[in-house]
Each structure stands twice: as structure tokens, then as C-alpha cells.
């Protein structure tokens, strides 16, 4: 009866269970990772392993100027002196850094969109990512697709160029705008910052570069997609976004990776700089291969993301939606240096099976009247573990700062867990710091109540999760809200049909 009519819904249903009946487990389609395919393309690879020669190989292949080699080698040597951090609330198999391939690029380098390897184009079409020079969705989206280590194309470059906006791959930026790169690269996340950031500084292959000049409001959503294709290739992208005085830019990063059994490493660095009166919005919709039901495979995701609110009245907001990923370790944060600057963090993390997520944010208040707002929501199901780690630090000079954080965890079933580890360091008494955290669950009694009102078990769960996640989803740029919802499979409108 209704199960037939809901076939479409079932196809999208995500992997929640545990507290629900066996019948549901049969009915629910444990969504096979839809994007788990592999593109057979000739790739040019560096031999596995990391030593000085690997660095030189990368530098040469990318035809970078001298200063980049010096930078990379400095980072590499520093990395050799460092120890991998082991304190996160996460268990993972040790990473063998000599087994990873640090550079992989499709052999043919395209000059224009038409020249892109058809296999690659097909891959992106499968992913639903447009590589066409035409209006996309309601708004207009400029896409810079990165296939393994190399930017495949950047659309709309001309239009943006007229406004003085630079949106290109970081490799291009190093060649064409070296003075900007030299000025800002490493200014927010220095190469000494942490183990993975240092590694990234040595071997980063590509990423996005955005520069918005004074007073310009970027009229379109800028977007990038990353994809890891070659087995054993780590992905080390580096993104740098600079917003000059009075400018505005909104950027979306979306990722996916194919099914694999060995773990893949993703160690990225993102730096945002907002000058006086500028605003940067950075959103991430991440759909990593979650590891199979036994917890094998999956992606190691170690990312350092930091925004510097340099000028007065500047504003940086991080919005992230994550599902999957075997191990996640990300701490997007803001350094609120300019007076009156504002840092925001909105996060939704969904874990299931054996996934582990350790996420959080850092807000450092340096300037006066600075504000930070943290809203973190997590949904844990099956045997997954979701930890939130927040640091709010109000330094002595940060008069009248305000910080508010809210962490909510939704637990489904009794084999999952959720942890909250907030840290507060308040060194200024005119500051106002507040924090609340709570947990809730989808219990059998709630499900029964909703079923007695005519909703099926799937619909009931969808309804609750939707209510829980709505606040975060509404923060995503409109153009991507649809994709986000599809990812979550919790669209109320869809379930009622």
C-alpha cells in the first residue's frame, strides 16, 4: 500500500535505526553510497612516499616560482620534527605517510571546457556538478571543480574579472598573483600551526583562491568541488579567501569520495581574511564515504580552517553540514581581532554505523565588542560517536565581548554516543559568555505517538530530524539547500508527497 507509494522516499532514507523495529530495518534502504564509483582516467602520479624529492616533483610539475619551493621545504623540514597529535576522542589506525601518493593529476591538461577529458566530465555529471557555461539553479553559480589534485575548470571567470574579483585555482594564483599569495598565505594558519597544517603547507597541490576588491559585493555563490579518485592519493587542498574593505563573498565547498577499503587521507587548510566592514560566508556540505557497515574504509579528514576578522566590523561565518567520514577532525574557528567583529559557526553532523566525528570550533576574542555565536547540532545513530569540542577564549582587552553557544545532540538508539567538551577561558569581566547544551532522543514512545497519527516510522523519524536540523539547514546558501536536503533525506514535503 503506502510502502509502494513511498518507494521514492525509501530510496533516499538514510541509515537511522537501532530503536526501531526489525521490519523497518528491512524496509529502509540502507542507502548504498550513491557516489561510490571510480573514473578510469589516466593519471600522472608521483611515486608513493614523502621525501624532499616528492616536494621538488610537485613544485616542478606545477611550475611554481622559487619562493614556493623555499616555503614548501621549510614546512617539510618542520614537519619532520613534529609528532602526530593523538588526543582527539577518536580511535584510528595509524597512517603510513610513506604509502600515500602526494600528487595525482589527469594527464591531459585542458585549455578550455571543451577539452576536458570526457571521462572526467562524465564523472562530474554523475556527481550532478555542472561544467557548463549556463545559468545553474535559480541563482548563478561559478564552479571550480577539482579532480584529485588539479583544478579542471573555472567557469564564469570572465564575468568576475570585470568586477575585479579573482576566483581561480591556487596554482593559478601563485603564478599570476604571486604578491597576493605571498602576502596572505600562511598569515592565518602559519606553517607551524599543527601537524596536518604543516604537512599541507609542504605538499598542497591545489585549492581555491578568491580575492574580492574593496567595496565589491560578489554577486554569485562561488563554489568548489573536491573529489578523491586515485587509490591511496591523499588530498591536500589549500584555500585562501581575501575580502578587502567593505566587500562580501559567499563560498561553498562540497566534497565526495569513492568507495575504498584503505583509508584515504584528507588534510586541508582554509584561510579566510576579512578586512574592515567585509563579510565572508563559508559553507561546507560534506558527503564522505562513511566506511562500510563494519567500519572499514572511509576517509580521514583532518582540516584546519581559520578565519581572521582583521578589520573593524568584519564578519566571518562558517556553516557546515557533514555526513559520513570515518574520522573527522575539524575546528573551523575565528580570530576576532577587529573591534565589533563577528564570528559565527553553525554545524550539523550526522553519524551512523561506526562513524566517528570529532568536530568543534574556536572563537578567540581579541578586539572590543566582538561577538561569537555557535550553534552545533549532531544526530548520532547506530554505533556512531559524535563529539563536539568548543573553545571560547576572551582575552583581556576584549571588552564588552559577547559569546553564546548552543550544542544539541539527538541520539537514536542506545548504542551511539554524543559528547560535548566546551572550554571557556574568560579573562575579561565585561564580557558575557553563555553556553547551553542538551540531548534528546527519538524514543519508541515518540515514534508510536506519531504513528498513531498516521505517519509511518520513516516519516516520523524524518519529521523529528527535520525539526531538529532546520535551523542549520536554513543557514546554507539557498542554491545548495536542495542538495543538502537530499543528502539528509529528510524533506518533510517529500515525505507527505
Amino acid at each position: 500500500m503506502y510502502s509502494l507509494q513511498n518507494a521514492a522516499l525509501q530510496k533516499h532514507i538514510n541509515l537511522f535505526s537501532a530503536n526501531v523495529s526489525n521490519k523497518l530495518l528491512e524496509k529502509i534502504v540502507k542507502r548504498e553510497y550513491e557516489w561510490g564509483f571510480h573514473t578510469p582516467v589516466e593519471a600522472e602520479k608521483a611515486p608513493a612516499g614523502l621525501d624532499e624529492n616528492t616536494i621538488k616533483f610537485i613544485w616542478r610539475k606545477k611550475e611554481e616560482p622559487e619562493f614556493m619551493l623555499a616555503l614548501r621545504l621549510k614546512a617539510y623540514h618542520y614537519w619532520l620534527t613534529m609528532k602526530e597529535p593523538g588526543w582527539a576522542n577518536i580511535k584510528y589506525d595509524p597512517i603510513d605517510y610513506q604509502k600515500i601518493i602526494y600528487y595525482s593529476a589527469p594527464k591531459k591538461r585542458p585549455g578550455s571546457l571543451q577539452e576536458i577529458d570526457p571521462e572526467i566530465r562524465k564523472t562530474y555529471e554523475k556527481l550532478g556538478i555542472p561544467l557548463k557555461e549556463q545559468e545553474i539553479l535559480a541563482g548563478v553559480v561559478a564552479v571550480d571543480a577539482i579532480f584529485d589534485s588539479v583544478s579542471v575548470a573555472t567557469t564564469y571567470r570572465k564575468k568576475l574579472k570585470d568586477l575585479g574579483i579573482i576566483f581561480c585555482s591556487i596554482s593559478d594564483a601563485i603564478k599570476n598573483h604571486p604578491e597576493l599569495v605571498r602576502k596572505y598565505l600562511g598569515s592565518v594558519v602559519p606553517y607551524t600551526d599543527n601537524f596536518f597544517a604543516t604537512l599541507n603547507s609542504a605538499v598542497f597541490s591545489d585549492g581555491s583562491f578568491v580575492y574580492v576588491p574593496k567595496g565589491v559585493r560578489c554577486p554569485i555563490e562561488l563554489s568548489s568541488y573536491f573529489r578523491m579518485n586515485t587509490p591511496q592519493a591523499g588530498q591536500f587542498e589549500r584555500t585562501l579567501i581575501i575580502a578587502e574593505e567593505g566587500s562580501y563573498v559567499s563560498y561553498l565547498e562540497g566534497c565526495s569520495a569513492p568507495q575504498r577499503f584503505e583509508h584515504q587521507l584528507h588534510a586541508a587548510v582554509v584561510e579566510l581574511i576579512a578586512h574592515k566592514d567585509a563579510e565572508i560566508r563559508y559553507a561546507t556540505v560534506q558527503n564522505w564515504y562513511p566506511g562500510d557497515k563494519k567500519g572499514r574504509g572511509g576517509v580521514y579528514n583532518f582540516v584546519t580552517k581559520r578565519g581572521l576578522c582583521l578589520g573593524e566590523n568584519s564578519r566571518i561565518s562558517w556553516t557546515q553540514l557533514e555526513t559520513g567520514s570515518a574520522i573527522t577532525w575539524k575546528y573551523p574557528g575565528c580570530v576576532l581581532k577587529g573591534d565589533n567583529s563577528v564570528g559565527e559557526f553553525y554545524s550539523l553532523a550526522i553519524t551512523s554505523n561506526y562513524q566517528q566525528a570529532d568536530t568543534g570550533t574556536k572563537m578567540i576574542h581579541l578586539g572590543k565588542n566582538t561577538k561569537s555565536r555557535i550553534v552545533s547540532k549532531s544526530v548520532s545513530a547506530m554505533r556512531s560517536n559524535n563529539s563536539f569540542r568548543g573553545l571560547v577564549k576572551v582575552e583581556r582587552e576584549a571588552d564588552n565581548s559577547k559569546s553564546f553557544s548552543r550544542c544539541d545532540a539527538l541520539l537514536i538508539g542506545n548504542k551511539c554516543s554524543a559528547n560535548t567538551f566546551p572550554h571557556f577561558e574568560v579573562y575579561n569581566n565585561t564580557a558575557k559568555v553563555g553556553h547551553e547544551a542538551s540531548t534528546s532522543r527519538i524514543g519508541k514512545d515518540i515514534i508510536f505517538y506519531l504513528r498513531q497519527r498516521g505517519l509511518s516510522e520513516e516519516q516520523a523519524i524524518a519529521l523529528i530530524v527535520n525539526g531538529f536540523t532546520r535551523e542549520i539547514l536554513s543557514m546554507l546558501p539557498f542554491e545548495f539547500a536542495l542538495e543538502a536536503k537530499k543528502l539528509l533525506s529528510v524533506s518533510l514535503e517529500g515525505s507527505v508527497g
Partner: protein
Amino acid sequence: MLEIKNLHVNIDGKEILKGIDLEIKAGETHAIMGKNGSGKTTLARVIAGQKEGCEISGQVNFLGRNLFEMEPEERARAGIFLAFQNPIEVPGVALSSFLTSSLNEIRKARKELPLDWFDFSRQVEEKTKSLGLKEEFLSRGVNEGFSGGERKKNEIFQMMVLQPRLALLDEIDSGLDIDSLKRVAKIINNSRKEDNAFLMITHYQRILNYIKPDFVHVMVEGRIVKSGNSKLAKEVEKTGYGNFS
């Protein structure tokens, strides 16, 4: 409409219902009276679809269909409504969106077109007024922060919107002050039609003064020990349940 034959229910090994026979025809209002622990709520929940931890035997037919072959939501879509004794909170889920989905599922089953926001809001407006509920409670989480009495009113509100064929009202009077009780009774009385039926579960006689049942059954320790008309309710009030074993 509802036919129960020799219903036995064990919960966690303990026998709660020991052979219930009951028939409710369309247009009728029945009342079941019994002490706490007599099994009244279990009866209502099993009809609504509770299976967790229960061993159920016997036969229950609803509108000619075997109820035990139907999932809880299928029973709801067929027209069964249970006003819970202890309605729970569903925080974060707005009552309006939940009820719209619910209503549209039921309408779909009845081969009616789904309602959109406007129609829903219009229908709902007068209903909220008649219960003395404020508009804003629609946008709040279901039962979020509601007192016991408010939750009961919310159950009746949902019943008015969903218009069931068979409404099982489990202790609808508990937690309500006299004014609210009168309002609720008025609504229920106005809803009584030829093609629907009501089963009221209570252990106080009081509500039966306002909603006069056609049939009254006394339940003791999992069995219906006596059935009669509304006069039976007064008898129970006078002599207590002890006399009915």
C-alpha cells in the same frame, strides 16, 4: 465497526487482558470504567497498534478488516484515533507541520486531496478558538512546555482536525478544570455522528455526566465484568469497583 473477540494480552510475561469481548457499532458511544491497573489503557493502546513487549492473541476487526495485520499508521489512516493518557513531548517539531502531514496522510487514504497551508489554517482557526487555545501553540513544538491539561486539549484538537471514525479517549478528563472539561465535552458531543464511534476510558464517573454514553462496561483485572447503559456508571460511583468482582 469494532469487534473484539477473546483478546488476551501479556506484557513482559504478565497477563494484563484476560479475554476481552467487545463490540462497538457506528454511531455508538461506549465507556469503559475501571481502577488503575485494570487494563483499560492497555486495551486502548493495543487497538491503536502497540506491539512492543506484548504477546497478543484473539481477534480484533475494524470495519471488517483484521486489525492485527495493520501497522499503527495504517490503523490511523483507516480512521482510528487514540487520545493518549499521557501525551508526550516532541520538541522541535511544530504542531502545525506535524498535523498537516498527518492529516494529509489520512486524507490520502480516504482518496481526498491534500490540504495546503491556507486551507489548513482556515480549518484550524475556529477549532483552536472553541478549545480556548492560543494561535501560537500551533508553531510551538508538539506539547513542548505544555501542562497536563493543555496536552489533553491538544489531543482533542488533533481529533477535531483528523476526524476519525473511531476515537479512543483515554482518561481525557484528567488534568482538566471544570470549564475546560465542559468545552471538551461539548466538542465531543457535537462530533458524535452516525458513521463514527467513541470509546471513553475513565475511572471517574464525572465526565460521563457531560458525555452520556450509550453503553458502559466495567473492567476489573483485565476482564469486562459487567455491561449496561449509562445508569451503570452511576452505580459504580455509588458503590465503587469492589462490588464488581
